[in-house]
């Protein structure tokens, strides 16, 4: 079978059947890409996760682009990224086209009144999980707090915060860390 078609189909399947976003996809991608098709080795896959995690953008797209590029350069990367994005795109589009017709229905409205506070909590939870993996302690917890307050109270753009934080990290590594 044509490798473009095969890799597109594999990532389409992964995109279609994984609930819960990027990180939930890791074991499924591993099963398909490492164990079943043997496109990359286990070691390369682990490096790949580390790189895809530190890069900006959608995690699953980063991983699939990388694997596609390893298989067949740029056309391969495009085939894999397209396969990952397409199922989401189609499903959401169908929902979006129908949902706004039911939005004002009292039953649907009451269901979403219950769902909204739960969604806010679901965004609060990864804040604490991420704080653990980013090694936030009492001595450096002022950084995320200051960033959050700057955005929340003063309306600072999150993109500006990202740029400043990267710059501070660079200055810290170049100037302060060598003297410690």
């Amino acid at each position, binding site marked *: 079978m044509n490798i473009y078609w095969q890799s597109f189909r594999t990532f389409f399947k992964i995109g279609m059947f994984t*609930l819960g976003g990027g990180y939930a996809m890791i074991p499924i991608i591993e099963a398909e890409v490492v164990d079943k098709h043997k496109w990359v080795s286990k070691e390369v896959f682990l490096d790949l996760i580390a790189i895809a995690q530190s890069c900006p953008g959608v995690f699953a797209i980063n991983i699939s682009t990388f694997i596609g590029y390893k298989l067949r350069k740029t056309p391969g990367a495009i085939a894999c990224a397209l396969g990952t994005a397409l199922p989401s795109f189609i499903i959401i589009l169908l929902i979006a086209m129908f949902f706004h017709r039911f939005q004002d229905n009292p039953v649907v409205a009451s269901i*979403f009144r219950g769902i909204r506070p739960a969604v806010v909590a679901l965004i609060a939870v990864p804040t604490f999980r991420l704080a653990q993996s980013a090694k936030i302690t009492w001595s450096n917890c002022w950084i995320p707090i*200051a960033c*959050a307050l700057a955005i929340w109270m003063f309306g600072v753009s*999150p993109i500006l915060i990202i740029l400043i934080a990267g710059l501070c990290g660079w200055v810290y590594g170049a100037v302060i860390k060598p003297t410690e």
Partner: protein
Amino acid sequence: MIFFQLFYTFFQIGLFGFGGGYGMLSLIQGEVVHHWSWMSTSEFTDIVAISQMTPGPIGINSATYCGYTAVHNAGYGEAMSVMGSCVATFALVLPSLILMILISKLFIKYMKTPVVQAIFTGLRPAVVGLLAAATLLLCTKENFSAPSENAWQFWVSVFLFVATFIGTLVFKINPIKMIIMSGFAGLLLLY
């Protein structure tokens, strides 16, 4: 021109969206709700809920949905709205595609240098702050109601927030299950 604005906005989000889907949500929210006013906070929260319940990466799901809603809210028809979601999704994926191809081509050896590592060290705590800000910005009257407005809905909302928070963080209940249960509670208590 809304399509150029959408492209520019989601390209930026794709380029600066560190920290996975949830980190990206605070960027999307900042742009589509606060900067461009394409939709209300409660519309955005609904989009996040639907993005979590449907398969696929949350970043792609919410970009597709936001693109559609932004154009739809601007008063255009169905076909234009579908174009909007195409533009937003394509713009979100494009930086990843370019960046990852470049990295696999050239920069893989630079990823472990002290400079790059130092930049990531600076980014990590800030991304935690970004997520916290996303949570705070969603704690609005639109999502929770207010004691003076509708005390019953407010306290039910607070209860659902706390229950979902403890349920997922402590008891590790599947988030989709929590959304479905909260929707059911909404139907029973807030109809």
